[in-house]
């Protein structure tokens, strides 16, 4: 798995950090609460191991996915546990399980994901545009593997940049995954000069 050096992984982690910093500001103004970010993890893994690294494959999760089009194609996936989804909806004044709940989570995904993608694009000087969000509530593995499958043609190594956004005062968080196409990662590193 030595495809990327430690220095390169640090650079990617830093990118994820700044991206999720911007995303947390967006989430914070949406919810009217302060939002903290965790130190991001950068995983470079064989695709087979990616799902298990994220969580229990058969646990229930809601995923909101945004595609990235432009200079560096990829996907951004936001994952909510059922409890986090319910708390998020509560903070927005939407009843969990109602037909509005999915739209509310999708809107969170849209705002947070798009600000992440924009921050990333600005930082590395690339034209990156988010595509409209799509959502699913299902087994974690089914959601994650479907997002990975889209990016799997180029290679069977998955690069996951994983951060958590934690809403202050609530036991509530969203995890955040950036899944770039493999060629895109090399471009990104080139722009960063590492």
């Amino acid at each position: 798995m030595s495809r990327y050096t430690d220095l390169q992984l640090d650079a990617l982690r830093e990118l994820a950090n700044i991206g999720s910093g911007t995303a947390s500001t967006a989430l914070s103004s949406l919810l009217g609460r302060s939002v903290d970010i965790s130190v991001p993890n950068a995983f470079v893994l064989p695709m087979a191991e990616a799902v298990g690294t994220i969580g229990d494959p058969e646990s229930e999760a809601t995923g909101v996915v945004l595609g990235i089009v432009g200079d560096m194609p990829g996907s951004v996936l936001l994952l909510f546990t059922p409890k986090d989804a319910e708390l998020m909806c509560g903070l927005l004044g939407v009843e969990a399980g109602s037909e509005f709940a999915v739209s509310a989570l999708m809107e969170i995904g849209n705002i947070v994901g798009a600000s992440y993608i924009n921050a990333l694009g600005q930082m590395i000087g690339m034209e990156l545009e988010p595509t409209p969000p799509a959502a699913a509530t299902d087994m974690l593995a089914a959601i994650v593997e479907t997002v990975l499958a889209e990016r799997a043609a180029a290679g069977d190594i998955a690069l996951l940049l994983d951060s958590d956004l934690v809403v202050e005062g609530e036991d509530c968080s969203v995890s955040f995954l950036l899944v770039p196409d493999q060629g895109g990662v090399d471009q990104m590193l080139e722009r960063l000069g590492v």
Partner: protein
Amino acid sequence: MVRMGELAASAAAGDVLVSLGLGSCIGLALLDRRVGVAGLAHVVLPASGGTPTPGSWRFADFAVPELVDRVVKLGARRPMLEAVLVGGASMFAVSNSSLEVGQRNEAAVRELLRAERINVIATETGGSRGRTIRVHVSPQTVTVREAGGVEKALVTA
């Protein structure tokens, strides 16, 4: 456990081959029910475009022939092979072309099975739900479960 892009075969009674939470991927089981040999592939994408990656069976066009080889090596008789397909869902409600990978996966696997003259005896494919497939090697049964659902038998002993 057969994870993304992996495959496995077994002739050991009591073995269970499992793929958890298939989304757009296909779980392809090959069975010779009389001799108790079974295989399972977790196919991610329909076609490779020709460049094989050692050790990865994520493309249908590499995975299907390889799985046939593996079960035959364990004593399955080629003309007796039967197939079960699970997965190939469109997980995300708002669909764009790339999210229809599920349908393309299923079509590709079916085409390859036709070319190998292997009959498909049971399927649980399409739709929008993730699924787990379990293949019990002997006595040979195949079950499928959706998120929040109960285990359902596709092939019974």
